C-alpha cells in the first residue's frame, strides 16, 4: 500500500529530556491512523515535527515521497489539542484570515467557507465574535478552518473534546467522509472507543519509543489469547465447574443472558481447535453462549503500556 507519510528514525531531545527516540512510522494513503500513547509519551512532539513546528534532531520525514519542506504546510490540516481562536475577532473574518495563511486566495476561501458554513448549518455565525459563541460552536469553526484548504493529510489531536454527542457524531461522519474522498487522517486520542470505531492503523508510543504499530486487525489477531466466553446450562454445576477447572484455564465471566447458566472465560492452548472445546462442552450440558474474546484497543493499550 502506498504511504503518504513516512517518518524514519526520528529523534528529538529537549535539554536533558528525550521526547522521541528513534521513532519510525508509516502512514498508508487513505487510512485513518491512530496515534496512541499515554500522556507525555511524545505524540504531540511527533505531530509538531510533521507540522514543521519543531525540527527533529535526527531522522527524516517524507510527505508523499518528498522530504518535508516548508511549502508542504498547505497540504496538511492540523487541529492541535491546545486550540483556540482570536476571541475578539469575527467568525468570518477570522476563518478567512486563517484560510489565507494556508495559501488560499481571498475569493477561494470565501466560496469554500460559504459551502462549509451551509453544510454545518452555521451560516448565521459569520458576523459574530468568537467570544459570543459557546466552546462547542467555536470548535466547529476550528474544524472547518482545519479542513478548508482540502489537505492531503489531516491531523486531529483529540478532535472530539468539547463536543456534545450529537456534534461529536457529526464531526466523526465528516472525518469519515473526508477519508472516503481521499484524505489521510492521523488521529491522536485517548478515547479508545473512537479508535475502535474509526482507525484502521495504529501506532503506540510510550516513553518516547514506538512500541507497537500496524493494522488494527492484525494487532488484534496477534493479541488474542485463544480465550472463549461460554455459557453452559447444566443440571450439575458444581461437578462441571470442578472438571472445567481441572482441564482448562478458567476465569469467571459475566455477560447478559436470560438463562440461569454457568458463565466462564476459557483459555485453550495456542493450536487447539475451538471446535473441540465446543463439542466437549456440549457433552456437559446445553451450550447457550460461545464467543471468542477479541482484545479491545483499550485492552491492548493497557497491556502493552504496562508490559513496557
Amino acid at each position, binding site marked *: 500500500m502506498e504511504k503518504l507519510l513516512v517518518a524514519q528514525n526520528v529523534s528529538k531531545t529537549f535539554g536533558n529530556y528525550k521526547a522521541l527516540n528513534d521513532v519510525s512510522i508509516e502512514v498508508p494513503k487513505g487510512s485513518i491512523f491512530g496515534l496512541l500513547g499515554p500522556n507525555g509519551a511524545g505524540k504531540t512532539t511527533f505531530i509538531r515535527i510533521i507540522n*514543521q513546528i519543531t525540527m527533529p534532531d535526527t531522522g527524516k520525514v517524507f510527505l508523499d515521497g518528498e522530504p518535508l519542506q516548508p511549502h508542504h504546510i498547505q497540504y*496538511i490540516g492540523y487541529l492541535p489539542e491546545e*486550540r*483556540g481562536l*482570536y476571541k475578539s*475577532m469575527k467568525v468570518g473574518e477570522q476563518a478567512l484570515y486563517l484560510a489565507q*495563511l494556508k495559501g488560499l486566495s481571498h475569493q477561494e476561501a470565501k466560496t469554500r467557507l460559504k459551502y462549509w458554513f451551509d453544510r454545518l448549518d452555521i451560516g448565521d455565525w459569520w458576523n459574530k465574535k468568537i467570544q459570543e459563541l459557546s466552546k462547542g460552536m467555536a470548535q466547529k469553526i476550528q474544524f472547518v*478552518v482545519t479542513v478548508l484548504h482540502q489537505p492531503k493529510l489531516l491531523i486531529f489531536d483529540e478532535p472530539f473534546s468539547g463536543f456534545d454527542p450529537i456534534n461529536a457524531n457529526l464531526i466523526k461522519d465528516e472525518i469519515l467522509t473526508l477519508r472516503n474522498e481521499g484524505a489521510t487522517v492521523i488521529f491522536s486520542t485517548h478515547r479508545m472507543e473512537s479508535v475502535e470505531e474509526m482507525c484502521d492503523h495504529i501506532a503506540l508510543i510510550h516513553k518516547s519509543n514506538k512500541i507497537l504499530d500496524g493494522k488494527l486487525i492484525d494487532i488484534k489477531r496477534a493479541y488474542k489469547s485463544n480465550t472463549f466466553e461460554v455459557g453452559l446450562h447444566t443440571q450439575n454445576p458444581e461437578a462441571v465447574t470442578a472438571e472445567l477447572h481441572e482441564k482448562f484455564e478458567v476465569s469467571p465471566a459475566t455477560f447478559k443472558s436470560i438463562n440461569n447458566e454457568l458463565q466462564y472465560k476459557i483459555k485453550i492452548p495456542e493450536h487447539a481447535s475451538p471446535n473441540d472445546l465446543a463439542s466437549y462442552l456440549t457433552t456437559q450440558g446445553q451450550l447457550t453462549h460461545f464467543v471468542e474474546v477479541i482484545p479491545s484497543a483499550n485492552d491492548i493499550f493497557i497491556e502493552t503500556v504496562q508490559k513496557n
Partner: protein
Amino acid sequence: MNHLSLIIKREYLNKVRNKSFIIMTFLSPLIMVGIFTLVAYLSQLNNDKVKFISVLDESGLFTDQFTDTPSLQFKLLSNTSLEEAKSASEENSDYGLLYIPKTATIDDLSKAITFYSEDSPSLIVMDDIEDAIEERTNTLKLREAGIDAQTIKDLRIRIDANLETFQGEETSKLGSGLKLAFGGAAGYLLFMFIIIYGNMIMRSVIEEKTSRIIEVIISSVKPIKLLLGKIFGTTLAGITQFLAWVILIGVLSAVVTSILGIDPSAVPSPQQEMIESGGMESVAQDVIMEIANLPLANLIVMFILFFIGGYLLYASLYAAIGAAVDSETDTQQFMLPILMPLILAVYVGFFTVIENPHGTVSQVFSYIPFTSPVVMLMRIPFGVPMWQQILSVVILFATFIGTVWFAAKIYRVGILMYGKKPSYKELIKWLKY
C-alpha cells in the same frame, strides 16, 4: 497576499478597531488639553485677584520704594503701633503686613524685617518684595560710601559673548538651548513610544498564548514571520495613534484658544519670562534663525533611523517576554532588564549630555545600542561627526538583527510552553532547542 502582509494587516486592524484603543486615541488629547486649559484658567484666576499688602515702615527709608502692580497693591501705614497694624490688616483681610523696624544701621535691617500674613505667602510675592528692599538698601549703602548709584549703572557693561566653532559656524546660547530641546524631545518621544507600544506588543503575544490559537497559526507560518508581523502591525497602529494625538491636540488647542480666549501655552514659566525680558520679537527671530542653523536634514534622517532601530530593538525584546510568560502578571521579573537601559539612557541624555555633549560618557553611551537611540539623538544637534553617527546606526541595526534572532528563539519555544513561569536559566536552555 503573502503571509507577512496578511499578519501585519490583521494586527493593525485588530489594534485599531479595539474599543479601548479608540477610546484612548480620542480621550487622551481631550484630557491633556483639558488639563492645560484648566491650569491656564486657574493661574489666570489667581493672577486676576489683587493682593493688598500693608507696609509699616518705621525706618522711613522705603516710602517710595514699593510700586503697585496689577496684582499687588501696597498701603503705607503710619503713626500706628505694630500690634494695631497687625489687627487692622487682619481685619481688612489683607494679603499680609510688611514690617520694617527702625534700626541703628542699614546692615541691621538684613535680619530685622518681618512679613506677617494669614498663610505662608507665595514665594514669587516675597521675591518681589525682597528685591525692592534690596535695591533700596544697595542704593543707600552706595550713597553712604559716597558713590552715586547712577554712576554704577552707567559703568556696568552687559557682555554677550559670540560663540563660534573653529569651522566658522556661529552658535549661541539660545541655539544650545534649542538643540537641547530638539534632542530631548526626540529622546523622550522615543522613550514614551517604546514603553507604550512595546507593552502593546507584549500583550498581544500573551493574548495569542492565552487564547491558545498560537499552535494553529504556527502550523501555517513561521514563528519569525508572526513575530515580525506583530511588531510591524502594532508599530503602524502606534504611529496612527500618535499622529491622531498630534492632530487632535493641535485642533483642540486651537479651538480652546479661540473660543475661551485662553492660551494653554500661556502657563507662566521661568523661560518665558526670560524671553519676554529680552524683547519678544527679536527672540522669535533668533529662534527661527537658530532652527535654520540646526543640521535639520541630518537630524531628521537620523531621528527616523534611530527611532526605527531603537524601537524595533526593544519591541523584539518585549515580544520575547510575552512569549516566555503565561500572563501579564508574570512579566515583572523580565521587565527590569528592559527598563534599566532605557531609563539609564534617559538619565545619561538629560544629565551627562547636557553637561558635556562630547564627553567620554556621552560618547560611550551613544554607541551602546540599548542607549544609543536616546543618547545619540540628543548629541546630534551639537554636531557629531558623520562617521560616528553611521557607526552607531550600524551597531544598532546589527544588534536589532541579533535580538530578533534571540527573540525568535525564545518565541518559537515559549509560545508552545504553558503552565509554568520560566527562569532565566530555562530561557538560556530554550536558545539551544
